[in-house]
């Protein structure tokens, strides 16, 4: 079922499969897709808005004519006909507006939902790579805010003609009634605009100061919240409150200033339309006295002058369209990552042997893995160590196909990972991370997260294995506690992530620094559970990215990465003789430094054997391209 997601996306949305590099194109194509999706409604919106604009334009003329006829012969049949026509047009206008409002609302909702579903599906199928170009928060903005903006594009486009018709029609109508009226309007508009512009004050300064004060309060609040426990214990809440609120008077002062400045600008800006209207009416009055114009026409002219000022609204409408398109363009980086394609094979019986053949990975133009070859025999534990930036996490990601290698391949029990179906792959390989994201709503749900949810019994069992059961039971609703309601420490979060990995049967477990926040005892318990027959299954193959020497010491094999290459491989005890290897664990960026046991003093010197012990590891590491992987030579001496 899950494997159908990417297939569906690729089939239905050509934009996602052919990223042609030109910025914006995929986004606009998606927008066209949204337009097609709501084509019927959009066409209807076009007709209703256009018709409504036309009726709105005709109405003042009809009303004016009705007035003239009524004034001439109040009780005549013609007057009755014109009154009826006015009533009919007014009703029509209301009906058209209602339909327009309904259809625009539903069509927007439909387009927005369609866009979001599309983007969501694509994002999910692109997986980690979707987040590589776009930070998570930014991704949400695109899926939520930008989709909402872009989703109004179809109806904005449909009502564009109406937006043009109204002001232009108003001006034309003025000219038709009397050219002098149009002239008065055309001359008056810029004159007034220039005149009133001089009153407009720049609010930028007060806004900036306002935001500064606001930021200061927020900063102090964040500080105080960081010390919440200290403050609660010291009972200094009142003092802290006063300290945080100290910039409030300044905020208030700037707020008042903003209102004053805005008031001056807004007031004069609001005077434009009535003054223009009065100017047009004055000219109309003069023409009336001259006998060139009827009373009804004067009434109509007053209305048309207002409609003609809608030219500002036209600009707004165009801005809206541009914003929608810009928003749609922001989808491009999301869509640029192609959906992950899965194969059709299922796994043959096997013990979970994991093999990397010449695995290369490039991140940001830099090669972070340079042809790594290794074999992890089924059921064994491989520790991956190295300084930060040495490619450990990339190796972990590639080993379970969170990302595809840029060269080489990864096989599980002889099957290249891309040939496996989605479910076969994800069921076989489980992951736990340093900072797991807890999805799934509740604590139980987050452990059960998978292609199909794990049964509750298994969830508890997994939690127990990950040493999470104890603290979960302390939560208000145990496993039913919503994740958002549970204040979890880093270590607790990690244990839930481990439980999630344990809860699903599989052949391989990849732990990317997944025990870094655990205390040593808990880590020991978890690794014991890992090594044992986890939840009744046979021991899984384990790949553990580790910072602690103790973790590496417990592994069957250790691979030491440096600059994307295997610098040495072997047992921890054997590698420990190398200065460089010991230095990896002494690095200052090692979390929980004190938990890393110090090694015995080994005198540093050049007397370290070449390629120490690597060859002693029986059938563990397959290094067919030794000549391309000069890890041992320079490495050992350089340490």
């Amino acid at each position, binding site marked *: 079922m899950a494997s159908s997601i990417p297939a569906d996306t690729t089939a239905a949305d050509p934009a996602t499969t052919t990223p042609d590099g030109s910025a914006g194109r995929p986004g606009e194509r998606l927008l066209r897709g949204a337009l097609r999706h709501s084509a019927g409604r959009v066409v209807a919106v076009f007709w209703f808005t256009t018709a409504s604009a036309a009726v709105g334009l005709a109405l003042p003329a009809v*009303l004016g004519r009705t007035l003239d006829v009524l004034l001439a012969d*109040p009780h005549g049949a013609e*007057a009755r006909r014109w*009154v009826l026509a006015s009533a009919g047009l007014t009703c029509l206008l*209301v009906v058209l507006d209602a339909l327009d409002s*309904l259809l625009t609302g*539903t069509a927007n*909702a439909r387009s*927005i939902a369609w866009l*979001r579903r599309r983007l969501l599906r694509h994002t999910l199928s692109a*997986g980690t790579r*979707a987040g590589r170009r776009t930070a998570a928060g930014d991704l*949400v903005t695109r899926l*939520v805010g930008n989709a909402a903006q872009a989703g109004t594009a179809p109806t904005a486009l449909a009502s564009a003609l109406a937006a043009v018709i109204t002001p232009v029609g108003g001006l034309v109508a003025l000219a038709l009634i009397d050219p002098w009226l149009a002239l008065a309007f055309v001359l008056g508009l810029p004159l007034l605009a220039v005149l009133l512009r001089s009153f407009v004050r720049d609010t930028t300064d007060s806004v900036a100061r306002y935001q500064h004060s606001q930021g200061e309060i927020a900063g102090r609040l964040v500080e105080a*919240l*960081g010390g*919440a426990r200290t*403050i609660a214990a*010291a*009972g200094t*809440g009142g003092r802290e*409150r006063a300290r*945080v*609120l100290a910039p409030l008077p300044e*905020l208030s002062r700037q707020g*008042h200033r903003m209102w*004053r400045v805005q008031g001056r600008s*807004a*007031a004069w800006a609001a005077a434009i339309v*009535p003054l223009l209207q*009065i100017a047009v009416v*004055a000219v109309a009055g003069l023409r*009336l006295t001259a006998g060139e114009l009827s*009373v009804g026409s004067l*009434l109509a002219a007053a209305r048309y002058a207002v409609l003609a000022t809608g030219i500002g609204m036209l600009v707004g409408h165009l801005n809206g369209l541009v914003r929608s398109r810009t928003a749609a363009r922001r989808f491009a980086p999301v869509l640029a990552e192609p959906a*992950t394609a899965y194969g059709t094979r299922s796994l043959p019986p096997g013990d979970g042997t994991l093999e990397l053949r010449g695995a290369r990975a490039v991140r940001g133009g830099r090669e972070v893995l340079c042809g790594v070859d290794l074999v992890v025999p089924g059921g064994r534990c491989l520790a991956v160590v190295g300084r930060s930036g040495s490619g450990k996490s990339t190796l972990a990601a590639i080993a379970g196909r*969170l990302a595809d290698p840029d060269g080489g391949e990864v096989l599980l029990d002889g099957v290249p990972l891309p040939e496996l179906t989605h479910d076969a*792959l994800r069921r076989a390989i*489980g992951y736990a991370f340093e900072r797991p*994201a807890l*999805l799934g709503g509740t604590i139980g749900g987050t452990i059960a997260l998978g*292609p*199909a949810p794990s049964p509750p019994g298994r969830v508890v069992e997994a939690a127990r294995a990950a040493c999470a059961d*104890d*603290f979960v039971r*302390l*939560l*208000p609703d145990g496993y039913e506690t*919503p994740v958002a309601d549970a204040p*979890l420490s880093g270590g607790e979060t990690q*244990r839930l992530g481990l439980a999630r990995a344990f809860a699903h049967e599989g052949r391989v477990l990849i732990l990317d620094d997944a025990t870094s926040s*655990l205390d*040593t005892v808990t880590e*020991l318990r978890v690794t014991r559970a890992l*090594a044992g027959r986890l939840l009744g299954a046979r021991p899984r193959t384990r790949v553990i990215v580790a910072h602690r020497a103790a973790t590496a010491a*417990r592994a069957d*094999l250790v691979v030491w990465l440096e600059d994307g290459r295997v610098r040495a491989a072997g047992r921890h005890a054997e590698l420990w003789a190398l200065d460089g290897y010991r230095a990896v664990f002494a690095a200052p960026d090692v979390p929980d430094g004190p*938990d890393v*046991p*110090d090694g015995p003093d080994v005198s540093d010197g050049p007397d370290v054997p070449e390629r120490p012990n690597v060859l002693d590891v029986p059938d563990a590491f397959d290094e067919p391209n030794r000549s391309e992987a000069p890890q041992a030579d320079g490495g050992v001496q350089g340490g």
Partner: protein
Amino acid sequence: MAESAPDKKGGRIGARGARPGPYAEGIRFLRERRRVLWRLAAWSVLESGQTFLSGYALARALDDGFLAGDRGIGLAWLGLAALAVALGAYGTGRVYRAMAALVEPLRDALVRRVVTHAVGGAGGGRTEGGGAGGGTTAVSRLTHQVEIARDTFAGLVMVSRSFVFVAAGALVGLFSLAPVLLLVVLPPLVLGLALFLATLRPMARRQEAFLEADENIAETLGAVASGLRDITAAGAEEPVGADAGGRIDTEYRAARALARWGVVRVVAIGVGGRLPVVLLLVAAPWLLGRGVTTGALVGALAYLQQSLLPALQSLMQALGTGGSRLAVVVRRLAGTAPDGGGAGPALAPGPAVPDGTVARPTSPAVELRAVTFAYGDRAAPVVEGLGLDVPAGGHLAVVGPSGIGKSTLAGLIAGLLEPRSGEVRVCGEPVRGSGAVRAAALRVLIPQEAYVFSGTLADNLRYLCPQAGPGARTDAELAAAAEAVGLDVLLSRIGGPYADVDPGALSAGERQLIALARAYLSPAPVVLLDEATCHLDPAAEARAERAFARRPGTTLIVIAHRVSSARRAERVLVMDGRQTVCGRHAELLERSPLYRDLAGSWGGPGDSGHLLGAGASDPALAPRDADGVHPVARPGLPGDGGHVVAYGPVGQMQAAGDLGDRGAFGGQ
């Protein structure tokens, strides 16, 4: 997103008292600002004048001027209308100032409330980490939601005020032109308004449903976006996509429902704003027959089309969406009780200023009697039936795996948490209830997250000291404290006690040193260090702990981050779920397997079977002290000598070693 999550932590601990609803509070707020409202009304009258003249002047300009052939009079009347426009604009400017006097105090009140709630309601939770989430919520409230409330409230007041005064101007104008006009105009206007008001409530509900659905989407997609790696790794694209898709569908349905209600609004505008025009034309023969002039008719039509219709449209737009927005935001902000939600300890609002009282020698410095605590009615207890005595001058270390409840114990002793049953006393004073304030003055708790605020170092260090009196500290004492805990290097680096500290520029360890020096200077005799040294290196930690051990009259309880802390203590309390054991280091090594594990003895031959590839000769496992720091010789503490006693009710604890000397309480 974060802001949409109400402060759940506050809700979890302690029930909130009844408060007046946002509506009643709003009324009270406005009633307190009657004068501003009057000013607002007074300046709005100018707007009414403009509206009034827009029709009346037109009618007179036609009747007396243009239609009568007198251009001058016609232009004069129109000039008067233009003048009224200018005056109205001036009035609008003044209205903005009056708005400031109405809206800014509201914003101030909301900011105060958010800050009070955040500062008072945080803390005392199960873990320190909870503060981060609460922080983003509070900041979002402060910068985002308060501003939405401010802007929406201002918009609502502006628009409804505008409608009232424009309608008043137009209706007075109609009455002045010919009272009979009102007969035609008023009924449909009232009908339209009634229709709108009747649908306001159901429409507001739809609007709120939509806003809620929108926030749910943002929250869900936020979780998805930040959890893509985990979703892929777990192969959970399908269920996660289905869940998020469901939320998108919910919002779609809510938006559609909202759009359908929008039709009612259009109809209400049609009835209230457009129908009067038609009725005026229908009634024109009759009106003209009753002496209504041509100008009056045109003026009336102008009122309807140019004033009432736009005002009605703005009103319905603003009330329809803005009202619900404001209601939602205010309700959310109202969830932050001005009194702090009762989550904090029952302490006096002011700083608890210790008066330097020394503990009464007769009672233990800290005593727990059968204390049971759980984070919820249905949750398993973290601490059950725990009893503990720490004599004055004693030194106890608490160890155990993370998450086992060590910080909870510290919170209980500090009185931050209320036990479900049992009693906690510090120097004989109950930490909750009547003795809380006195007890608070007798202990100082330094948590893992050291609190350093922007200000001078001296301010930070004297945070827990009274300004004057026996507890006040001189600069020399500050320097001595800094020297004792190891803050001296930082002190001289930043330039003495009166230099400003920027908390962000300090390392976590430096912040902890400041907090430690602060605790050292506090007059409180009981010091609780809750992993307060976790960011220090072992040597610095040892120095700080020794400083407290030497501090006169001090009872020290250390929630240990490293086993070396336990070795320095006289007694160690090992927490491991229900299995709580207390004893000396050497005894515990024998009796508690957990303590053995914790103490770094787990590399022994007995375990090697579990540790594949980790032989006894493995260099990484060779050091028996996980810290790599040699145990520090136990300092000679005052009152040393087997006074640290833990006991527990039957079955709750493994008796360890010398517990028997307190037979009355001893576990069996």
